[in-house]
């Protein structure tokens, strides 16, 4: 079991990250829903799991995180800033002229490994990094965070076939299964479920969790790796999590919050923390 203190600390950290996302989403029309659904996962990764060094983002022994669902960039920026990769105040420059914080991750941002935004690119790249580390005999791990709508991209499954072939037990695919894509519910566009069955049939070690239950998230991420094969974590989440008016709605994908909506959500976070 995870000590309550670890889960509690991470839950408080996740509140800080959500606060940034919600505040920025009152200033900008942005991809808020998928950032909120993945916020707990990103918190656990950056504040408990990943071996990273904000003072030396490119150090050789770091773990790699690729946010393949690049539109959830606010969760990444908030996590990187909170973790010390760049000053938290810089978050205010999101999508502003001359700043470094574009609407999808770029190499200008300390801690970003790969510029993403077009879906289905992260996992093949993750496979390549993981192969390189294995050939070196290096202990680095590679985490690739994807969306469930992204499972519609064929390139995901090309890489899903390749990773077990190369016995990449240093590779973890995390699917943020929030059940919505840009236009509508995934089930109403092209269904991708059952995801655990799919990854299992591709010979991955599969762990299915509630992506908002920090104890489950940490337990899943700490259980890794299973020798000889890659791991897929299917994380059931809620799109727009913690903003009541957005949760499980198509609107959550890309919107701006009114001050009232944001205030209500922030009050809710205070209760949580």
């Amino acid at each position, binding site marked *: 079991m995870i000590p309550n203190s670890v889960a509690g600390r991470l839950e408080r950290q996740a509140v800080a990250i959500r606060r940034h996302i919600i505040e920025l989403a009152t200033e900008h029309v942005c991809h808020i829903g998928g950032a909120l659904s993945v916020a707990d996962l990103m918190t656990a990764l950056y504040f408990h799991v990943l071996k990273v060094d904000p003072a030396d983002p490119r150090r050789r022994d770091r773990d790699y995180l690729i946010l393949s669902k690049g539109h959830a960039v606010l969760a990444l920026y908030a996590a990187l800033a909170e973790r010390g990769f760049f000053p938290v105040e810089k978050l205010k420059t999101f999508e502003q002229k001359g700043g470094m914080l574009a609407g999808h991750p770029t*190499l200008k941002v300390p801690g970003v490994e790969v510029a993403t935004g077009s879906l289905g690119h992260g996992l093949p790249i993750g*496979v390549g*990094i993981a*192969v*390189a580390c294995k050939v070196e005999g290096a202990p680095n791990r590679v985490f690739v965070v994807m969306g469930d709508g992204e499972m519609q991209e064929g390139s995901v499954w090309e*890489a899903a076939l390749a990773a077990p072939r*190369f016995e990449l037990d240093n590779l973890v695919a995390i699917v943020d299964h929030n059940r919505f894509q840009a236009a509508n519910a995934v089930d109403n566009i092209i269904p991708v479920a059952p995801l655990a069955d799919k990854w299992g049939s591709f010979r991955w070690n599969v762990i299915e969790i509630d992506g908002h239950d920090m104890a489950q998230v940490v337990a899943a991420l700490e259980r890794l790796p299973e020798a000889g094969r890659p791991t897929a974590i299917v994380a059931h989440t809620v799109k727009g999590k913690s903003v009541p008016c957005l949760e499980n709605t198509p609107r959550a994908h890309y919107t701006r919050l009114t001050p009232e909506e944001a205030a209500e959500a922030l009050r809710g976070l205070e209760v949580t923390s």
Partner: protein
Amino acid sequence: MNLQAAVKSFPELLLELGDANPNVFVVSQDMGPVGPFSQKYPERALDVGITEQNLVGVAAGLATRGKLVFVYGMAPFVTMRGFEQVRTDLAYNEKNVKIVVYFTGLVGGPWGSTHHAIEDLALMRAIPGMTVLAPCDPHETERCLRGAVELAGPVYIRMGAFVPVHEQDYAFQIGRAVPLRGGSDATIIATGTMVRQAIEAHNRLKARGVQAGVLDMHTIKPLDAAAVRDAARTTGRIVTAEEHGVIGGLGSAVAEVLAEAGVGRLARVGVQDTFCTEVASYPELCEIHGLTAEGIEKAVLSLVEGGGP
């Protein structure tokens, strides 16, 4: 010394590079061993099967870890199916990956248009930060490959069904055209397999009293614009020749330079905005579509006889 005698093929060069540098990797698609490198360093020779997106993405990942990666695959599939990965994962993400392709131009012959690559130069040239090389013979291929390794960043190297063209040693530099023949009436700017045809066209034209120079344009991007402008200023008439469509490749690149400089008249030899659907061998397809010395000769004569500078 015979310039072509000691030439190393890509697989032979890969072994040399791999022996010297443990960071050298090759990623290929369903083609078995890439020569002795694959036998000697199986862990650094990945065959990712019949994929293109994954092929290029895996290469980008290896390069993210600092590897020097060769992608080795078939031109039509890598450049078209894997285009966005080349553009975004390699070029936008600034990866040190060299894409070495075979099955270029019309080499696929009777296999049909699915296996012809007549758009690859156009596609690769459109990508910011991409270096695009199209050598003309085995010797120049080796120099292009070695040159690509010296460059940081993504490079596209278009192989071909080559026979020796260069007989004497010459200064090779990526981005610099190689003057092969002089001539005051016109300049043939050729790339890849068409360089050899251009030399033959030069000989045929000479017999008719027309002096056509020949430039070997092994680098499509960055194009040697100065050489193009100089040729246009000294000979007026320019004919481009490429085993590629006339849209977007060497012909278009030269046209851009000429139009911006306001000099020269241009004719483009290449596949004319069409699929090569005739069932025919590779040489026969080249004949049908005018990718021959005769085709170049006609284009030069059309400019000479058409009058004007």
